[in-house]
């Protein structure tokens, strides 16, 4: 480390999103440094820090600069010098460690990377990125640990789980089920750190390899040793190359001081103090909403109205008879309700599941048994719902399990038999369902990216130094709530930052957050344009609605009063108890007090070797030797063997066809990456190149490792997963020593005469340009990506021959060769499509003959990739669906009228498939949408409207690199539940008619 080249006295102040740092330096030495959380009191904290260093500065003339995202506005207002924080860091590193190759700096909400090798290159995370201090804080809350504890346990990990690293919300969706399934906290904690590492590499390095001497800076990297370990291990850095300096916290403030020293502008202490104290925030950018309550009276009326929607409680001491237990093992909380024969609540419980729901429920059961001791009360039925359903059911032997949506409907019906709309905002999920003629008609769940849910407000309250109750109460009478936008958590953080910068109070922010949560639910999740689109008899529930500010925002936004049962957070458990009652059993199979006493539970992790998927399994072993296995994508890992004939699954069928393409011999080898447009056209290209005499190498189906392999060269992190995984496929082909690698640029796809045009989407069409520019390893291999017209033999042949002549002169293909290759290719392509359609027919017939439901799993051809669809097809199969693909049932003559510009080949099929689903009673459609697919913003609404016009359910599954199927299972099961109920109603209706 070099000496600090500061001649005179210089002060550097760094105000980040969560902390304030100050450094005073003089004659090459740091005289003072301090690091503190500022709890959003930016200016006050700065003045405080300054006053603390007064003795060092008094009477001196010194230079000063402010840095950091929250310092930006303040410096402007006070008229003090400002230096951008990444720039400041680079100054520090250049001065202190000039031989550094790269710097990784994680802050509260920003992540930065600086490369010094090959020209200075400084980067910050984009606006969609987790993997920062705030993310780690959130995850620690989720694990019910402090950050320090999380760090400590992480060092004891024995294995790592894949956790989506794009953003906090995604990661939560992965982590929650892991916890529910009993994964060890140490392993989860380390996996979270690994996710941060992956995010940094994928989101920031973008193709620039991090190597050489790497400096790690910023709070999280200073404090979290587990995170350091993950970074060093992943980047393969030894102690000489992974540097964690003492000044990690102060790199920015030292840089600011260096910058200030170079500016030669000096101040006196009074001068700076005066400027800071007197500065007022500048022009207002933020907008405000109307207050939630105009007066205390208004609040009183509101409270009284809602107090009337209540369930009856009864002291078990006064009761005898049957009792019914409902358990809701949710993603963050565990709820229990014990009901009497008259639906009175004998006992209820609501608490965070503290990352270990099994022990929470065990305690509760013991509690209940002790209450019932010596009372003539018999538990006649028990049911469990929620994320942890399967685990709890096998642990405690409840009589039934039911999907949470059905549980909630059962409960809501109890409060309002005419309920036509239920909205449930919980810790992690938003669920809502519309009810038409007393059956669930459509179910909407929040997509992984849009959760502005309860735990969000909680985390926020904590970050501002409040508990959630106090925090939300503050919002009730806020005079002018701030407008915070309705995007995901990361964006919301920045909105709050901006509001704080402009002087918004905690009250206004609290109210603003409540309004955001509500708007997020209405406009982004439900996608309603007006209150009338929701319904007339609305019941709201879920823990988040206990917050009066959220409830009031919702009513105000809708302009309509709604019912919030007093037991809002218990509704799932309440519904489960009602369900238990409906089983009409004499005695519940629930563990008896004696069995419970000897109950113990152990979770171990292992990797399934059943197939190439290598699922990470968690094996829960209970005292009686019973096991519950989770994490498996198919039934094999769970130890279940299917005996009967497997149900038709077009996804499996198509994969089979693609993997059984004949082997070809040739002098030279051409590599075809099996992703994006290549999926459907593989039979075509395979035949084309076989005809031209190549040995054709096809990259295998993707796995998680495929993604990791190519992750380092992805320049745009917000592109869809199917595109990003392509980098790995190319790497695999390079490793196979192909002479050529081929992925064409096809602006136009095969013309199926369905719509106005037959485009590919921009990503499918032109991704090869990106690969060419960003994949350094590819430069040693000839990469061909000609622009071709696949609909014309003549144009195609001319184009292909020309491409070879230009880029691969030794091949010497004539236009005639290429014409023949095209004909063979098309023959093979049409044969493939015909087989797919024939199998589709067979599947439909099979379903008819065997009275099975058909599920059109609609997506794109590349969604059959097992890693991209995460085995959703198998999951649907295991739920007894006959699975067909959109391309097997979308006969072009049935193209429906659509209100959008229908101009993409793949997307046109979705509309036709939806139309087909409407024509058959036994066919349902579920649409898979890859995160980041801009085109699907258009198709989803249209597919939904086609289905809903015909009274069909619409279900959308958003998929990304997420690996857990828990949420998908809930959606599919909810759909099944709704279908069954609908049918029962229909049968009941018919019977009534007969009578």
């Amino acid at each position, binding site marked *: 480390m070099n000496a600090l080249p500061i001649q005179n006295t210089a002060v550097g102040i760094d105000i980040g999103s969560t902390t304030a740092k100050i450094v005073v330096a003089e004659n090459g030495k740091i005289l003072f440094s301090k690091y503190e959380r500022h709890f959003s009191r930016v200016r006050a904290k700065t003045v405080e820090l300054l006053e603390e260093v007064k003795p060092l500065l008094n009477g001196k003339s010194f230079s000063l600069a402010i840095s950091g995202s929250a310092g930006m506005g303040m410096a402007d207002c006070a008229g003090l010098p400002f230096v951008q924080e990444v720039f400041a860091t680079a100054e520090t590193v250049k001065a202190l460690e000039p031989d550094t190759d790269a710097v990784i700096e994680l802050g509260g909400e920003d992540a930065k990377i600086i490369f010094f090798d090959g020209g200075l290159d400084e980067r910050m995370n984009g606006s969609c990125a987790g993997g920062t201090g705030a993310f780690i804080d959130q995850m620690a809350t989720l694990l019910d640990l402090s950050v320090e504890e999380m760090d400590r346990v992480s060092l004891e990990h024995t294995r790592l789980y894949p956790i989506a690293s794009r953003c906090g919300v995604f990661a939560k969706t992965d982590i929650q089920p892991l916890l529910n399934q009993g994964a060890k906290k140490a392993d989860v904690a380390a996996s979270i750190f690994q996710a941060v590492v992956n995010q940094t590499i994928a989101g920031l390095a973008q193709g620039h390899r991090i190597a050489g001497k790497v400096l790690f800076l910023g709070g999280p990297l200073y404090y979290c040793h587990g995170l350091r370990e993950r970074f060093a291990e992943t980047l393969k850095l030894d102690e000489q190359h992974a540097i964690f300096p003492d000044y990690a916290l102060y790199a920015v403030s030292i840089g600011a001081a260096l910058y200030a020293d170079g500016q030669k502008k000096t101040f006196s202490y009074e001068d700076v103090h005066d400027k800071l104290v007197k500065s007022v925030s500048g022009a207002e950018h933020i907008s405000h909403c109307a207050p939630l309550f105009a007066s205390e009276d208004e609040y009183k009326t509101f409270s009284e109205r809602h107090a009337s929607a209540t369930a009856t409680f009864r002291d078990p001491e006064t009761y005898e008879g049957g009792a019914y237990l409902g358990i809701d093992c949710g993603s963050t909380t565990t709820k229990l309700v014990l009901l009497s024969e008259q639906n009175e609540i004998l006992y209820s419980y609501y608490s965070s599941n503290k990352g270990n729901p099994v022990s929470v429920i065990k305690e509760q059961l013991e509690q209940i048994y002790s209450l019932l001791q010596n009372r003539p009360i018999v538990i006649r039925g028990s049911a469990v719902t929620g994320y942890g359903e399967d685990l709890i059911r096998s642990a405690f032997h409840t009589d039934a399990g039911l999907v949470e949506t059905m549980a909630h409907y059962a409960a809501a019906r109890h409060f309002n038999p005419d309920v036509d709309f239920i909205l449930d905002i919980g810790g992690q999920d938003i669920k809502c369902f519309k009810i038409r003629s007393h059956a669930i008609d459509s179910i909407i769940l929040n997509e992984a990216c849009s959760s502005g849910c309860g735990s969000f407000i909680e985390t926020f309250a904590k970050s501002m130094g409040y508990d959630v109750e106090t925090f939300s109460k503050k919002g009730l009478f806020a005079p002018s709530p701030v407008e915070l936008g309705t995007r*995901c958590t990361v964006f919301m953080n920045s909105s709050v930052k901006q509001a704080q*910068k402009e002087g918004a109070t905690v009250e206004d922010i609290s109210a603003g957050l409540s309004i955001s949560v509500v708007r997020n639910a209405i406009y982004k999740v439900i996608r309603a344009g007006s209150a009338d689109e929701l319904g007339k008899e609305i019941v709201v529930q879920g823990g988040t609605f206990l917050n009066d500010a959220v409830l009031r925002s919702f009513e105000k936004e809708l302009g309509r009063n709604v019912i919030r049962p007093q037991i809002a957070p218990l509704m799932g458990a309440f519904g489960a108890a009602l369900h238990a009652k409906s089983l009409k059993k004499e005695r519940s199979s629930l563990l008896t007090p004696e069995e419970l006493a000897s109950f113990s539970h152990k979770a171990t992790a292992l990797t399934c070797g059943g197939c190439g998927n290598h699922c990470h399994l968690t094996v829960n072993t209970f005292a009686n030797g019973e096991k519950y296995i989770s994490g498996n994508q198919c039934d094999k890992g769970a130890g279940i063997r299917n005996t009967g004939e497997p149900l038709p699954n077009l996804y499996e069928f198509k994969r089979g066809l693609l993997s059984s393409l004949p082997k070809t011999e040739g002098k030279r080898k051409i590599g075809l990456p099996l992703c994006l447009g290549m999926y459907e056209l593989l039979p075509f290209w395979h035949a084309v190149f076989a005809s031209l005499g190549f040995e054709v190498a096809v990259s295998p189906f993707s796995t998680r490792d495929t993604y990791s392999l190519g992750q380092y060269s992805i*320049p745009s992190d*917000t592109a869809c997963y199917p595109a990003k995984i392509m980098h790995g496929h190319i790497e695999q082909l390079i490793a196979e020593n192909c002479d050529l690698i081929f992925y064409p640029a096809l602006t136009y796809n095969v013309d199926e005469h369905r719509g106005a045009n037959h485009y590919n989407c921009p990503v499918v069409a032109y991704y090869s340009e*990106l690969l060419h*520019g960003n994949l350094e390893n590819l430069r040693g291999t000839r990469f061909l990506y000609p622009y071709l017209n696949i609909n014309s033999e003549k144009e195609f042949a001319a184009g292909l021959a020309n491409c070879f002549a230009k880029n691969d002169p030794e091949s010497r293909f004539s236009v005639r060769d290429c014409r023949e290759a095209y004909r063979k290719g098309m023959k093979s392509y049409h044969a493939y499509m015909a087989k797919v359609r024939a199998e589709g027919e067979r599947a439909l017939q099979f379903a008819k003959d065997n009275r099975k439901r058909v599920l059109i799993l609609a997506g794109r051809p590349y969604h059959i990739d097992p890693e991209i669809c995460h085995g959703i097809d198998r999951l649907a199969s295991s739920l007894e669906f006959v699975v067909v693909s959109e391309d097997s049932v979308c006969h072009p003559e049935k193209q429906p009228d659509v*209100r959008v510009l229908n101009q993409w080949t793949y997307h046109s099929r979705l509309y036709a498939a939806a139309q087909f689903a409407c024509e058959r009673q036994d066919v349902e459609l579920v649409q898979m949408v890859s995160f980041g697919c*801009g085109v699907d913003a258009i198709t989803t609404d249209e597919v939904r409207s086609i289905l809903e016009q015909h009274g069909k359910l619409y279900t959308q599954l958003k998929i990304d690199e997420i690996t857990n199927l828990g949420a998908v299972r809930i959606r599919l099961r909810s759909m099944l539940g709704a279908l069954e109920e609908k049918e029962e109603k229909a049968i009941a209706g018919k019977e009534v008619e007969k009578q």
Partner: protein
Amino acid sequence: MTERVLFTKEMKATHTILVPTMLPIHFRMVCRTLNHYGYKAELLENVGESVRQCGLKYVHNDACYPALLVTGQLIDALQSGKYDTHKVAFMYFQTGGGCRASNYISLIRKALERAGFGYVPVISLSFVGLEKNPGFKLTLPMLLKGISGILYADLLMDLRNQCRPYETVAGATDALIAKWEETLGEEINGKTPRYSRIKKNYRKIVRSFAALPMDRSVKKAKVGIVGEIFVKFSPLGNNGLEDFLVREGAQPVLAGLLDFVLYMVFDFIEDAELYGMKKRMKPLFKVAYRYLLRKQEDVRKIIREEGTFDPPMEFDKARKEVQDLIGLGVKMGEGWLLTAEMLALIGEHVGNIVCTQPFGCLPNHICGKGMMKPLKERYPDVNIVAVDYDPGATQINQENRIKLMLANAK
């Protein structure tokens, strides 16, 4: 399915055509041109949070930000009570092509329906003629007048950016812009002038801006703005990016709208070249391409001769040079033009670039963010920042990243 609401012949007399704020100077010219041909066109002026909220309410939140803003602006205006909603139509400009942006019109119509304005006709103005309306016809004279308007507006916008950072009388540049808009507006309203007269105007314009009191003693960093067309140009879309750069002591540099028109015309030629599509039309597009190039060259020439200002990008040169980086077949969204603009800026020694895009913009994954690495490899000193725009993204986040770019600006 409901029938599309047509803009009928009668409506030409009775209805006001509302036009969104995309490029303020340009679209005011367009409105004047339309009015000259007997329409009643008006540029929407409403901006701010209510526009965004309205967009969020009526448009799928995953749709692109420009679609959300354009729709939000229209519905916000209709709900404001300022207009007799039964006497207005809406016009939007559609490029067609494989980008999802080609679906704006359908998104706007759906949103209108949901907001209860389903009866408002939406006119799609497009070079590919995606839809027909009996009451609206794009004639050749109108098109030519429109092009001439675009050329004027490109010139004004360019000069504005070259003067404003240096003006010594605050607001003088904008006052001059307003004056020229008035003068040129009158010209549009009259008989189409001879081309020599137009060229004289160019010179007058350049001279009038050169005569503005300016202080060029402090060297200001030039910062190029490239990106998705709406957020690149529209202050509504990019939170007033040009103003921000000027405030931060930089000089914004933007290629004009005509470049985008040229790009679209060229794409037809390239389609014929690559795919043999519409081959017979190719000569016609070549003529149009050369015609437009010539017009742009005339402006460039006058700016060069006058000497005070930098001439704008030479389109055909940029097109030829970019082929080493990206194929000219990349024609969805801004396609290769975006990369070409970055390359041209670097060639003009404008190494500082803000690449703007709506969050999740599909083509920009490839032609924007996807081309940064190869550009940096060739020109290690180039200083590019990619900024995503989105209803939830905050200004502070965006400005911090732009400030980082500015801190390294040379």
